Every structure is written in C-alpha cells, then in structure tokens.
C-alpha cells in the first residue's frame, strides 16, 4: 500500500505539491503504516472517539483512538520495557501472539490452572481469537508500533489473569486495570465511558467491588508488558498473579 501521494503526473502538482510533500512526504515506517499530520491525528482521535461510542462494534475505532492518543504513554511503556530484563528481551525478539505461532494442542494439554491451559480455555469460552487484533496504522515510530501491538495481543492474557469474561462488564474492568498499568488515554476513556452502557445492578457491582480491586491490582502490579508470556505457559496462573502483584479476583 502507498503511504505517499503519487507523484507520477507532474501536471496537477503545481504550487500545491510542495505543501503536500511537507505534510505527507514521510516514509512508511512499517507495513500498514499510514503517516499522518498532527491535524489528521487530532481529527482521527475525535472522530474515532465519537464513532466508538456511537457504534461499540467498531473495534477498529477503539484501536485508532489508542494509536492517535498514545504519543505520551507509548514511549513511557517502551522505556519501562527497556529497563526491565524480560521487557528488554521482548523488545529485541518481538514475539507475536497469533494462532499460527501458538501451539494450541500443546497448550490445551497443559495442566488445569496453568497459564497456557487457562488462556486456551478463555479463548474457547468467549469464542475469541488472538488474530482479530488490528495492526497499528497511525503510530509514527516502528518500535512504538510494536509496543502497542504487543499491548493488544496481551489483552486476552489480561482477561485470563484477571479472570474477566469478554462481556461489557468484564471489558470495563480490564480497561480500568490497563488504564492504571499503561496510562493509555484510550484505556482511560474506555474505563470512564464504558460503564455508560451497563445496567444499574452491574454498575453497582462494578463500582463497589470490581473497579477498586482492578485499581489496587493495577497500582500494585509490575508492568504487565514486561512478562514474556510465551515462555511461561506452564506457570500456574496463581503463581504468575502473585509474581506480578495482581490480587486474587473477587
């Protein structure tokens, strides 16, 4: 895919061509990258926020919102990873969680309570797949693009560690946790506005039990992106929770 305007026909460039080149003459930094000007990012952030609220099935809008607003949080996350031995290795080796890279049969064969077994159980119970995560488009740094990709792919593991299902309630709880952990504005917005669509009964449970627990765990836990999950499938979930500092779910 092209990320630059085509310059094959000089006729229509005229004086306007120079201006466009300044704005859009950036290189494509990774496959799928679409370079954007600050104005475009601002418009995208606003538009995707509105659309995500209007149509909750537009997961691509949530992704776009995360990318366009993450310019402060992402470098922060990247630095956290760099300064941690396991996180550093992840940045170097760039593992991807995809059906093609996971050995599902092996994971299913692991004992109950292990990370691998519970992760697969989570995927099956909620009928989700790790392959549905959007690749980043609007992040203007190749390493940061990986960081956000990693964050997305690890999201399902967050569900597993927190023991939360993929319904609206579960997603909001995970978002609270992620908001504390990552500082991504998209998570903060999702955590704040997600509950809007919940019934009062659920809101009560959310406010009194789940969110405080999520916040405490988020604050207490070390950075979840610094865990090389692919090397820990055999580790029991509880042990990993303890190691990270996530309190047992209510």
């Amino acid at each position, binding site marked *: *895919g092209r990320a630059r305007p*085509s310059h094959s026909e000089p006729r229509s460039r005229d004086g306007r061509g120079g201006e*466009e080149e300044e704005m859009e003459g950036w290189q494509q930094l990774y496959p799928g990258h679409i370079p954007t000007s600050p104005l475009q990012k601002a418009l995208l952030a606003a538009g995707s926020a509105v*659309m995500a609220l209007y149509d909750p099935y537009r997961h691509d809008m949530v992704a776009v919102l995360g990318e366009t607003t993450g310019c402060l949080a992402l470098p922060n996350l990247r630095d956290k990873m760099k300064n941690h031995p396991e996180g550093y290795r992840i940045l170097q080796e760039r593992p991807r969680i995809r059906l093609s890279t996971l050995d599902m049969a092996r994971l299913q064969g692991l004992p109950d309570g292990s990370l691998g077994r519970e992760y697969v159980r989570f995927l099956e119970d909620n009928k989700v797949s790790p392959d549905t995560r959007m690749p980043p488009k609007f992040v203007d740094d190749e390493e940061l693009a990986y960081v956000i990709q990693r964050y997305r792919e690890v999201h399902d593991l967050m569900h597993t560690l927190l023991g939360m299902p993929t319904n609206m309630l579960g997603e909001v709880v995970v978002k609270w946790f992620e908001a504390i952990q990552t500082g991504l504005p998209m998570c903060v917005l999702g955590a704040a506005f997600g509950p809007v669509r919940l019934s009062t009964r659920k809101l009560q449970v959310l406010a009194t039990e789940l969110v405080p627990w999520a916040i405490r765990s988020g604050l207490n836990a070390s950075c979840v992106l610094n865990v090389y999950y692919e090397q820990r499938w055999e580790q029991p979930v509880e042990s990993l929770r303890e190691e990270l500092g996530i309190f047992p779910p209510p």
Partner: protein
Amino acid sequence: VYQVFETVAKKYDVMNDSMTLGIHRVWKDILMHKMNPCPGTLLLDVAGGTGDIAFRFINYVRSVRQRQLQRKLKHHQNLSWQEIFESYQKDKFNSLGDSQVVVCDINREMLRVGKQKAQHLGYSEGLSWVLGNAEELPFDDDKFDVYTIAFGIRNVTRIDLALQEAYRVLKPGGRFLCLEFSHVSNPLLSRLYDLYSFQVIPVLGEVIAGDWRSYQYLVESIRQFPPQEELKAMIEDAGFFKVDYENLNFGIVAIHSGFKL
C-alpha cells in the same frame, strides 16, 4: 461476502453526504436542471450505480408531465364527467410520458444497492439496470437522447474510449453531460480545498467506512484528473460539438456538456 459488499456500497452514499456536507445533492439537482428533460426522453446514466441521477430524472420528468397534463385538462373544461373519470385512470395518463432511464454500472453491488433504493423509495416504472463497462457499452449505436456520467468518468482507465462510446450510443441531436470533480483556479480557495481534501477526507474515510486508503486515493485521483479545458478538448476529440463547461463552487465540480450532431 454479499453483506460485506452491501455495507461498502451502502457506505458510499453516507460517505458522499459527509465528504461534501450534502452538497453533492445540490450538484446533481443542478445537473438535472441543466438537462431539462422533457417527457419521452431516453436517458443513459453511466456509472450511475446507486441511482441518484436516475431518481432525479424520474422526479423531474414526472413533474414536467404533471404540468403538461394539467395544462391539457385546463383546455378541456367542457368534458363530460365520464370522460374526466376515464382520464384519471393512471395508465391513460402515462405519468412518465414514455421517458426511460437505463442505469449502467460496472459494479454489480452498486447496481444492487441502487435497485434496493429504488424499491425502497417507490420507483418502479421507467427504470432499468444494466451491468456494463463505460469503455465498451452493451448498447447499439444511436440509441439514447441523453448520456450522463456523474462522478464516474474519473474512475475510467481510458477516458477517451468512454467518450467515444458515449458518442456512439447517442442519437444525432443527443446530449452528453458529465458531472465531475475538477480544478479550482482561485489560489486561496484552492489551498483551503486542498487542506480539507487531504486532511479531513481520509479521516472521514477511516472513521465512517474504516477505509483510509481508498479515500486518500480518491483525493489524489481528483488532483490528477484533467482540468476543465483539457476535458473539453477530449470531449471535442470524440466528435462532440458545442462543448462547454460550467463550474460549480469555483471549480470544485464542473459540468461538461456536448452535442452529437
């Protein structure tokens, strides 16, 4: 698969409204007024997928026909009640006056959305939908009174071939009308237009249709399309006479017109 295409084709209309802030409807209305068809006209609308021009044509012709019939009735004040009753039979009235529009598009899904729209809006007679390529139309020579192509010629690979085909299928005396994005010569407006096109439109494409790239391409292809005078020359090359153009909104859009003599 059908449903995917249906959403994409359906989104085209929404995208048109949001990109042009609804002004595309005005442009199409102006095109129809310029055409000023009388009942009995046979129109070919090429690349007319979702039917915007076709529906406007039918509305226009219907209202002209209404006025014709009203004038006729006024002149026949001394009719008996029986005759008046008979003349109110719908088929005798022939509300379209034998006008017909053929919508031709290369994309099956766009045609399907168009047909659905027609059904939804209550258009039944005088409409036909044909799958075809503007560079090689599936029609005989000298068939149509008017040929229109609205926001379609930009997507044709060989514009000259499309123009030649247009010439071929038109009757002598027939009119060619093309509504298309064109060039803004006013420098201030052109900068604003460029800013809007390159900054806002791809964002709209991403947010509304989840498709940045197509709309980026759209905006770039508009810049690469021949400007007014050049398109006029191309139309003349195809054999049309009295070729002229009218700028709408300072050249953001232009209507080119020519006659086959």
